[in-house]
């Protein structure tokens, strides 16, 4: 689905990412690499194919849009280094042409040397481009001129029908003050956002992106 905001065309992809053709920029948030392995180490059985599934979706996106830059607005890594991240490092070698940029989030606690070794350019607290300021947690943006695009909260939207029917989906949120991207990793929960009337919300259903 395509939308235009701040005179910029943005493609909302059902694989939980946005693409800005003018900047050849693919943006996603909350990748939480290494989360499932971290859980396994803690004694919680989470299959490792989850991490592989996330990477497979990312592969598809990179092939589809062939971006110059992949920007992650925070929480790229869940905790520390582990087998999931080794796998990621190997996978990444095929995409040496793509610039990986990370705006640090609260989970990104790796050492600077580790980011360097992985070939990731780190920005803190934000990365600005055109009319947008990409930042992990939108309320932390203290400027006024730019429109913050963020992640962090793993937004979800609950659709209710008559008669107790309820379904919850991850969503893109474009409010008056800022935008929030869905969490990219499937191994994440959903938090409902407080919304007001003129906010635009796009639910990601199993098949497509639709405005609600």
């Amino acid at each position: 689905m395509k939308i235009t905001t701040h005179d910029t065309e943005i493609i909302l992809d059902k694989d939980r990412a946005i693409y800005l053709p003018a900047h050849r920029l693919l943006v996603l948030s909350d990748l939480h690499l290494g989360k499932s392995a971290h859980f396994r180490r803690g004694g919680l059985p989470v299959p490792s194919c989850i991490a592989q599934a996330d990477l497979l979706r990312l592969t598809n996106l990179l092939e589809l849009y062939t971006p110059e830059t992949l920007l992650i607005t925070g929480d790229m890594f869940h905790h520390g280094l582990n087998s999931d991240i080794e796998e990621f490092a190997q996978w990444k070698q095929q995409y040496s042409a793509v610039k990986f940029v990370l705006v640090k989030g609260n989970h990104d606690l790796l050492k600077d040397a580790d980011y360097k070794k992985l070939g990731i350019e780190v920005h803190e607290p934000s990365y600005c481009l055109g009319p947008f300021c990409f930042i992990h947690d939108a309320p932390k943006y203290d400027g006024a001129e730019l429109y913050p695009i963020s992640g962090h909260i793993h937004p979800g939207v609950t659709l209710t029908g008559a008669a107790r029917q309820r379904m919850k989906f991850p969503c893109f949120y474009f409010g008056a003050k800022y935008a929030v991207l869905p969490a990219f990793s499937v191994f994440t929960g959903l938090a409902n956002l407080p919304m007001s009337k003129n906010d635009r919300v796009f639910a990601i259903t199993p098949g497509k992106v639709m405005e609600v």
Partner: protein
Amino acid sequence: MELEQTKGYKKINAWLKSGKRQPFVFQKEAWRYYLEGYSGIVNAPTGFGKTFSLFLAILIEAFNEEESAVKKKKTKQGTRLIWITPLRSLAKDIGRAMAETFEALNMDWKVGVRNGDTTQAEKAKQKRTMPEVLLITPESLHLMLAQKETPEIFKNLKCIVADEWHELLGSKRGVLVELALSRIKGIVKENRDEDLRIWGISATIGNLEEALEVLQPLTNVKKTIVKADLQKKTIITSVLPDTIETLPWAGHMGLKLAYKLLPIIEKSKTTLLFTNTRGQSELWYQHLLNLEPDLAGLIAIHHGSIDFELRNWIEDAIHKGSLKVVICTSSLDLGVDFKPVDTVVQVGSPKGVARFLQRAGRSGHSPHDTSQIYFLPTHALELVEAAAIKEAAAANNIETREPFILCYDVLVQYLVTLAIGDGFDDHKIYREVSATHAFKEMLPEEWGWCLQFITTGGSTLGAYDEFQKVSKDEDGLWKVTNRQVAMRHRLHIGVIVSDAMMKVKFLSGGYIGMMEEYFISRLNPGDCFTLAGRILEFVQVKDMTAIVKKTKKKSAVTPSWNGGRLPLSANLGAVLRKKYNETLNKTHNDIELDAVYPLFLLQQKISHVPTDTELLIELIKNKNEYHLFAYPFEGRLVHEVLAALVAYRLGKLLPITFSIAMNDYGFELMSETEIPMDDSIAYDVFSPENLEQDIAQSINATEMARRKFRDIACIAGLVFQGFPGKFVANRHLQASAGLFFNVFADYDKHNLLLRQAYDEVFHYQLEEPRLVAALQRIQQSRIVITNPRSFTPLSFPIKVDSMRETMSSEALEQRIERMKAEATRFSD
């Protein structure tokens, strides 16, 4: 040697005599069987000395042994009796009675209490010298198994008693007991090649034999049921309206007749007034105070959301007799005896005979007192229920308690429990576990899966590398080596999973109680709600606590708590159908049925009154809506599935979308198009054929399973419950049960816990066995179809019931589109 000639019996009998008491016949019978090495169940009404029937048996045995067993001991002799109780409060009372007995008999024995309230110091002391009698909850028993060197404790153990076994039986706590027993029996057998005696104490239930099989599944041991031939006298009185018009046709609050209770409360010492939900109890509290302001200070409210301290205070006040009336919910169903309580009131249908009698038994507790209970109907048709309850109670037609089976979540927890203790040998534990009632149907590959789940993470297909939990040590025992994992597990032993709760506290200090987090999350500052009979203004949430202040405002939201809506039991449903026959024929002696007679005349005039060999279907057209009502009297859960099933089957005849509503008596399908229905269609849509496939098609089983999975994930240790007000450590390891459900459904389909969630939905939520029985009964019945021109007395309560569900066969994307059109967004 005959019991009466033994040294121990003489000693006990002399002691009883000195207090002008003598043993009941069933007590002597229990003592005799115990001494002969039997396991068994004692079944007797409350207040007749059930505790003594087993406790004294152990003492008699000890006195029959060497004098050394009861006198000063040089060596540690360890625990001889483990007494499992479901409630902490019960342990306190029983412990006191036992300690008094030791004193009176001049014995050097100690009784120890072990539960969540036991201090570390006390536990350490117990570890040095185990008390001869240990009172313990099922959860704490598992905690003991999680300690190192447990076998030492059971060196001298003679018997384990499960008190209130009927309460534990119908829950996963019963499975906890089964597993703990299997291990302790195993230890005793290993150490001294002896079969440990296991006894239970149970109130009357419909399946006592099965209860015994669950408690002691071994076939090569002697077992028996000891029944007390004593009847508790219970007087049941209905509170009747002066005219039937006073009672509404629908509703479930019952406030209309409240004024009739005032003289009853007045003439009683203390009255317990039972309501079915916490919300209802709050309303009743306000209403009685408004009716009779003099009750201020003499009235209290007691339910599960009220602060622990406050509840303790109320219970003490009941003991002292300083309260005139206490509004309560199932929170007071069980527990210690309150001597001053001489009257009980049940507001609205108690849904089952056992529950009604249990509540009645809270009054007149001593052996030869009479229990006095009043039934207050909340709508006209409940008068029939009153008559049905009386008949079922008189006939002792008590429900069964169905034991849980194949709870892999509990098994997984248990295995980790053993692994953080001394470790376990999987062959040995497999033999023990598969001998229990709960797991006797378990297949070897299912056992293999459970073992895999805690050692390698799960099926090899899913690839769980780096997984760390339980591993084999050099002695070949499975153990937990990670101390963090062990610590976290210890905190989560147990199977009671509660909703996320938040403490409610005054701005000026002082706790009032607990509220479900989701309710609080919908409040805005300034909103008012009632809790513990007070109107409170919500200020803010701080540190996981809801801060409130007192307010003068009169209007407030009464919170609707989750749960509390139990379905009508099958036993009561059957008697109820019979009472419908009798009402019109006047072949009865029930004043309740006389009172409701005018309503039945009306029902008969505009439609039909179904007999117990008929199924009534009413087709009503109202404006542009078509309604179908059917009345199987099988309880709301069965009706919920039945409605969806009939809707689905009708939908196969022609495309049609229904709204669904139900109560305990019947269900409604509503549509904008005419509903096809005649005799042959009716027998088809109520057919038990192809049931499983049709149910799977007609309900959203995935959604229901997802909800069930929440508890399973907690019990199996996937999700940690935070403690109210406490900071949840390990944020990095938090994920919701729903997320695990999705992950397993997508990436590990063979996960046994997933299957368990579906099994629980079909068995416990959809009550499949009962559904099949109902459909078979309907096939044998005459189906009566009427076309009333307006809503009838029978259909009205359903119509009013707000629980509505839409049933349709639209595809997912279409459904979302339509929901979108209707969408009201909200956050929760």
